């Protein structure tokens, strides 16, 4: 008994001792720690030769030059392209994070067809024949004009090709999402005649009077604005920011002038009144009732009256007007936030009129009235009778917002088929419920989206677009830039999934349709098409990667038509009811339109904007009766209600609630969607008579303890 125990004891001790004096212990201790240093589930990026390729980012109308670093032809980093005429090396966080779009969990990986409420993947051939078949029916039914197009703001040949397709098809129903570009063209058309647009020479202005324009919030061509703004200090130029909230632009400005939301137009006209009264204006080619205008503004927009409306002291208004008139190279800039949604023509016109009165039209550092004669030279489209007929027709309505209302209003379908390209109206337009309803009213919706976003989900067929890193495309700068630069987006990788350049998809469709439509799109590939239609600038594009179409102040001074303002159009008022006013906030770190933000972009968002899955709204402590900082509250508007957290912010005007744009996505991407609420669910559109713009700068609301 005992001996056994001892034998085993000996055995055990012996074994232990034997192992102890062998390498086993040491080696295993060492190797197990090395194992933790090389865990198989921690990725090891493959090394290889480094190369850099230039391209242009087309995520927003900014069209910045980018340099893509590759390892063994595998893109690993996007950086700003030095000496590119738009951004000179600067780049926004969305561009830098661009590679995340390639592998975005919400990518549409192949053509899709809706079956019940689910999507099933189909081949391109099936997809094309399916769509062309449906379109053929529409056309044969004798109503070609019932094919519609909703496209994102950006210009360029792909959008042009879409328009061409609809022309050849026989439909005038081309609608663009609200954009700064369109707002400016409309303004130019109203004041200086059709076919024009306006560019602001921020690089050279010595006093920028910004009516809420988020010059560093993503307004216009964002990086160009950033560059101009940061150079401002070295040039000893000044920036005065007029808006109800201490935005980043206001914080960065030399002076912040708080103003009641939606009263920018009144202030602009107030300033005009002072200039006229004090005879500080520079006479120019003014027509369309200039004197009537002068009389109206001096009567209706005298400083005291404007003070009552805007909350800006009369004395300050006088001073501001004088400062503006006395400055060497002042320019006034319209367009709250990013200048796209919730804008009104009255404000745009009033601000541009201020430029006109100060004699700043087509002067260095002023406002350029430009005629962006398109560099695109498409051959004559061949039209059959149906096309001719359609081309003759009037557009059903003026703007995309009106289109949505008409779709909902009429019992029988206004549109039988709808293309959606480079836009996400079901998320971006105000009162998204209304938009989704409207989409249900259209029998056949085709989305050309790269991602399964809200609109793609509301469509019947998806012809997935390759991202800007996977395709060739020409991208002209838009939005208030004083020069026109066309950049060439080049494919940095072969399409990761079974996607196509929308241009190619469209050409395939046209071929499938046959007839004059095919003739009008008689190219084998979109790349071929681009090379042809880019005409004169193709060489520059393909060699330098960009072409400068127009630069510097245009010749001569354009006339200014005062008839619109002389009629003293009414200012748009916020709808809904409640003691507070909810206004959307543009935050550079969040994309407000299509495509949605990347995981990296969302990661940078402050916890005072997004907390877990709760959106955080800004209010002035003075407004927050009974509410706690960082506490929960219920926000109610006539459109709906939302559970929010509140952030006490001394930088926002009492009585105003600020809610960021770009959250509350509902598609399948856990890093980006399912966070917070979409401000567009809470705000309804207010159409400005005449312009057709959705001018809802906010909506009345109540905020109460949750």
């Amino acid at each position, binding site marked *: 008994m005992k001996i056994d125990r001892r034998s085993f004891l000996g055995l055990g001790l012996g074994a232990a001792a034997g192992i102890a004096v062998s390498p086993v212990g040491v080696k295993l*201790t060492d190797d*197990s*720690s090395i*194992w*933790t*240093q090389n865990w198989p589930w921690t990725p090891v990026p493959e090394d290889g030769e480094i190369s850099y390729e230039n391209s242009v980012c087309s995520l927003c109308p900014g069209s910045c030059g980018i340099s893509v670093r590759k390892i063994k032809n595998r893109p690993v980093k996007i950086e700003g392209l030095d000496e590119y005429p738009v951004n000179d090396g600067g780049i926004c966080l969305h561009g830098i994070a661009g590679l995340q779009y390639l592998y975005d969990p919400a990518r549409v990986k192949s053509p899709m067809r809706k079956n019940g409420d689910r999507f099933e993947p189909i081949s391109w051939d099936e997809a094309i024949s399916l769509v062309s078949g449906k379109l053929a029916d529409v056309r044969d039914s004798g109503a070609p004009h019932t094919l519609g197009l909703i496209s994102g703001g950006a210009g360029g040949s792909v959008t042009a090709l879409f328009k061409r397709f609809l022309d050849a098809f026989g439909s005038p129903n081309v609608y663009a999402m609200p954009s700064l570009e369109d707002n400016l063209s409309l303004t130019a058309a109203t004041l200086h005649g059709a076919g024009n647009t306006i560019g602001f020479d921020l690089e050279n202005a010595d006093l920028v009077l910004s009516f809420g324009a988020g010059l560093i919030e993503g307004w216009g061509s964002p990086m160009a604005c950033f560059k101009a703004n940061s150079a401002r200090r070295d040039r000893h130029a000044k920036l005065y920011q007029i808006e109800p909230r201490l935005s980043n632009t206001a914080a960065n400005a030399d002076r912040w002038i708080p103003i009641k939301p939606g009263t920018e137009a009144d202030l602009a006209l107030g300033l005009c009144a002072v200039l006229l009264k004090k005879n500080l204006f520079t006479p120019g080619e003014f027509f369309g009732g200039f004197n009537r205008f002068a009389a109206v503004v001096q009567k209706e927009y005298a400083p005291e009256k404007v003070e009552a409306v805007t909350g800006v002291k009369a004395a300050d208004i006088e001073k501001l007007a004088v400062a503006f008139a006395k400055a060497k190279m002042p320019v006034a800039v319209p367009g709250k936030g990013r200048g796209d949604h919730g804008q009104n023509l009255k404000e745009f016109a009033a601000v541009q009129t201020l430029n006109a009165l100060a004699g700043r039209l087509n002067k260095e550092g002023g406002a350029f009235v430009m005629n962006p004669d398109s560099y695109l030279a498409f051959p004559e489209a061949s039209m059959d009778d149906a096309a001719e007929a359609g081309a003759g027709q009037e557009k059903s309505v003026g703007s995309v917002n009106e289109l949505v209302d008409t779709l909902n209003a009429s019992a029988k379908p206004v549109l039988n088929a709808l293309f959606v390209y480079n836009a996400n109206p079901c998320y971006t337009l105000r009162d998204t419920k209304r938009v989704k309803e409207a989409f249900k009213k259209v029998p056949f919706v085709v989305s050309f989206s790269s991602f399964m976003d809200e609109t793609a989900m509301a469509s019947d067929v998806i012809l997935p677009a390759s991202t800007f890193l996977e395709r060739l495309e020409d991208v002209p700068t838009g939005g208030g830039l004083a020069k026109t630069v066309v950049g060439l987006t080049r494919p940095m990788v072969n399409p990761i999934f079974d996607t196509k350049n929308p241009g190619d998809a469209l050409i395939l469709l046209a071929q499938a349709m046959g007839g004059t439509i095919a003739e009008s799109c008689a190219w084998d590939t979109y790349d071929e098409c681009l090379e042809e239609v880019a005409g004169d600038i193709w060489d520059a594009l393909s060699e330098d990667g960009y072409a400068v179409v127009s630069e510097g102040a245009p010749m001569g001074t354009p006339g200014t038509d005062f008839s619109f303002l002389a009629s003293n159009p009414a200012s748009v008022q916020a709808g809904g009811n409640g003691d507070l006013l909810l206004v959307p906030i543009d935050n550079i770190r969040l994309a407000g339109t299509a495509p949605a933000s990347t995981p990296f972009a969302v990661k940078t968002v402050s916890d005072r904007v997004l907390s877990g899955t709760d959106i955080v709204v800004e209010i002035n402590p003075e407004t927050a009766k009974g509410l706690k900082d960082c506490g929960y509250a219920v926000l109610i508007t006539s459109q709906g209600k939302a559970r929010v957290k509140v952030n006490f912010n001394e930088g926002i005007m009492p009585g105003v609630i600020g809610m960021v744009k770009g959250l509350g996505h509902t598609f399948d991407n856990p890093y980006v969607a399912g966070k917070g609420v979409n401000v567009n669910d809470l705000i309804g559109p207010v159409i400005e008579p005449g312009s057709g713009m959705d001018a809802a700068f906010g909506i009345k609301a109540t905020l109460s303890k949750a």
Partner: protein
Amino acid sequence: MDSALIPEGAKRCPFPKFMLGMAIVGAVLLWGVYAMFLCWFKGLNQTNMDDYYGFALWIWADLAVIAVGGGAFFTGLLKYIFKIDELKNIINFAVIIGFICYSSALLILAIDIGQPLRGWFIFWHANVHSMLTEVAFCLSCYFAVLTIEFIPNILENRQLNKVSFFHHLAHNMHGVMAVFAATGAFLSFFHQGSLGGVAGVMFGRPFAFREHILIWPWTFFLFTWSAAAFGPCFTLLVTKITEAITGKKLVSDKTVNLLAKISGWMITTYMIAKIIDTVYWAQVTAPSMGFTLDHFYSNNAFYGYWILFAEIIVGGVVPGLLLIFKKTRENPIALLTAITLGVIGVCLNRWVMVLQIMAVPVMPFDTWALYIPSWQEVATTILPVAYGIMLIAVSYRYLPVFPQELELNKPAQATE
């Protein structure tokens, strides 16, 4: 089997009852073990620690158990070096408690680090300028000492002692115990100190930073001192609890009062030093970095002056005074109150020196950071307590831990 192992003449509760108790505590232990494995396999995302709270409940637990475990080295020092023979009646138990505390500390550290399999880097790739390196080395070495001090007591088990080799080994080890005790005291001085140093050297953290003597910040000496002062309190507290549970008197009042008296004087002197340190820090050190005392104790939901008061007055001055005066010291209630307050006081001090440091904002635009441990953290922190209870129970049952047990309980036996 069971009865054969129980020390001669000693009365112990029936085996089934014993096992039942063990089963209950064992369940708690298993819960902790489960949490431990969660942390090892899923990583530290199982905790509520974050980038502000890199040190939290676990590090506090470490510092606390090592502080209260200080009773072992200090009692050993008194017994073997200063030859206070009276303490032989409690030294065994002090050693066992120390052993439990230090093994627990090592276990918790093994859970706390993000890469347990690389833990040995702290020895192999040691950076001698880091207080933590000093802690790691002295801690593990002193744990070896405690094991050595514990072995003879184990070998004195009735059966083991029959093996002549073990018998002799135990005898010889007793013979040279003074040497081990001395080494232990040396090592303890440094690791207790360097644990204090961990906080004191953080010159980026005005709440923690203290002036230095040579390479050591004030907290270095304060920690050693406080461990020596409050350690015995814990030894006594556990003794009292054991007596309460077993319903026996295990250590004579003479011994208890002696140790209590020594502890009392240590605490009182420590408190004087601590108060001087606090005043100097509040008046000179912190202000030199632009911080006022108010900054550390206001504008947050938890840390107020109360914690300073609780640590220094309630958990320091009061027990100190209660223990130095014969009258209060020999009053069972007062004594119990004193040692309990003492233990709470020192634990509170360690809490402040770990968690409040992390909570206080340093950058002017930074904010207070508060934290609540996750259940995994709590479970792994309770785990050592369960383990300690079980080890004490087993040792008490099968080892002659208390030399006085038989004589103190003679009358009881006579009546049977």
